[in-house]
């Protein structure tokens, strides 16, 4: 019932009173004079959440300094670098590390080779529908997830899969396409392609079309335009994409595990095996820390050479 404002029982709407209460509570809990720390207060939950990862790294470092006592199957008490020595002296681990590095290098090369024309065509096309289609083709696998994508590749490239069927039509005997090194690299390229294109596209968008027209009006053919205009101007994007693709494939687990059939282990698979097959946590931790260090060194070297702008971080050149 509407009442006139003279009425003694007039009260503010419930929503206002709740708001006033919440404001008062906020003033009590977080007085205005603390205003300069408000940013930090809002940031604290995120800092703590990421802190779990830092804790985890410390725990890995701790674990890596104890060897497995084979009589009790418990980590030993004393601190030792023995686990790192085992890794350094083992030809098996060196082979796995080289395989991972080679796989990552090849993946970067082939992914960029495919991603560059893809993003170039996507950015330069005048047809909105075509651009949308190329984007959807890119985003769909990104959201499907690695396991299901690897499963798709298993089906397509299996001994009775579509690829071998197609080869059979032109009279080629079925060949074993899976469970070897090229299969793992192929899986990684397929997995990384969307990442690379999405990192390259903004860099290519930033290049004005006119620069290309200018270059070709001065007599450069398209290879020269690419070599002297596009590649230099897209360098930050290319370096960023190479870095992301390289570190992600260097540390990948699923593709070597599923498409390599156990014979093409990368470092991540070796770490997993140490934890879940051999139950030697110390050795596994040493490998894990070495992998983190390897990734950071590569990222550090690339950023030192090309600047931090490559990762889309603001400021700091």
């Amino acid at each position, binding site marked *: 019932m509407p009442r006139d404002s003279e009425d003694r029982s007039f009260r503010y709407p419930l929503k206002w009173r709740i*708001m006033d209460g*919440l*404001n008062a509570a*906020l003033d009590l809990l977080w007085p*205005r004079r603390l205003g300069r720390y408000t*940013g*930090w207060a*809002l*940031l604290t*939950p*995120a800092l703590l*959440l*990421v802190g*779990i*990862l830092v*804790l*985890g*790294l410390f*725990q890995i470092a701790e674990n890596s300094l104890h060897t497995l006592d084979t009589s009790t199957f418990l980590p030993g008490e004393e601190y030792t670098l023995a686990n790192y020595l085992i890794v350094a002296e083992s030809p098996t681990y060196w082979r796995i590390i080289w395989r991972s590095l080679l796989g990552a290098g090849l993946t970067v090369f082939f992914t960029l*080779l495919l991603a560059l024309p893809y993003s*170039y065509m996507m950015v330069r096309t005048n047809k909105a529908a075509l651009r949308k289609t*190329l*984007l959807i083709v*890119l*985003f*769909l*696998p*990104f*959201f499907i*997830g*690695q*396991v*299901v*994508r690897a*499963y*798709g*590749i298993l*089906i*397509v490239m299996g001994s009775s899969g*579509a690829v071998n069927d197609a080869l059979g039509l032109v009279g080629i005997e079925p060949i074993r396409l899976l469970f070897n090194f090229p299969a793992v690299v192929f899986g990684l390229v397929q997995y990384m*392609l969307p990442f690379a294109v999405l990192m390259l596209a*903004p*860099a290519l*968008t930033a290049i004005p079309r006119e620069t290309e027209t200018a270059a*070709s009006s001065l007599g450069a*053919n*398209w290879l020269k335009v690419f070599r002297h205009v596009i590649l230099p101007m897209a360098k930050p994007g290319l370096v960023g994409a190479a870095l992301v693709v390289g*570190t992600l494939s260097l*540390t990948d687990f*699923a593709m070597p595990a599923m498409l390599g059939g156990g014979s093409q282990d990368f470092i*991540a698979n070796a*770490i*997993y095996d140490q934890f879940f097959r051999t139950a030697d946590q110390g050795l596994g931790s040493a490998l*894990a820390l070495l*992998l*983190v260090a390897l*990734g950071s060194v590569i990222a550090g070297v690339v950023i030192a050479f090309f600047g931090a702008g490559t*990762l*889309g971080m*603001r400021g700091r050149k």
Partner: protein
Amino acid sequence: MISRSQRVIFWCLVWFCIVILSVPTIIVVGASLTGGNIIAFPPDGLSLKWYRQIALARDLQQAFVRSIIVSLICLAVSLPVGTLAGIALTRFRLRFANAIQIYLLLPFTIPLIGSGIGMMLVFGSWHILGNIWPVGVALSVINLPFIIWSVSSSAAALDNDLELAAASCGAGRFETFLHVTLPGVMPGVITGGLLMFVLAMTEFLVSLLLTDARTVTLPVQIYNNIRSIITPDLAAVSSVFVLIALLAVWLLDRLVGLEIFLKSK
């Protein structure tokens, strides 16, 4: 102008990309519709029997429910945390802002196997391993940069004066936040939330490290089943993921438009 040889070469490469990106997906969906008992493409007669099969399979069903729970927990943790952090990074002048940004990018720079093993050890020492909720928390940690990035790009576009105007009209700090700041960053919050949910649904490696037989999530269950035997029922489960991905792409396009990812910063 694009010359002819360039056009031919580029289109060949683009078509190769399209084929390797899409064909496995199409074949998985096709294989799930087979009437036969083995994976075959073209399918051996159309039927939905494998979908009936997975609807009855208890282990897959439970794994699916667990995946949903894990994703919801991931959302419940990362939405508030990521939103506040995204606002803090753009709306407040902080000292050491560069160092904080590098720190908050750690989930992307530490290899997933390292993060996963580290969290496994930490959760183990806290005696919470073997539950479902730590998996959700872990997934919110490893994907946190996505939501922070998406909220801060919304927050950066918000005019500072709006908050001042609200305050000068008598709004308290809480009201200003609720009625001005939060609606302003809402597009970023929704996009980030969508990314977090779908990425948590499909996440594999960290879930593999943090789950056991009783808490296994759907991607890990698929991985385990592939290791033993490849049957068409897995193709049917995979098609569920394809459907989720289709929904996610459609939603993302409706919410922000996919073209936003082509813009140069």
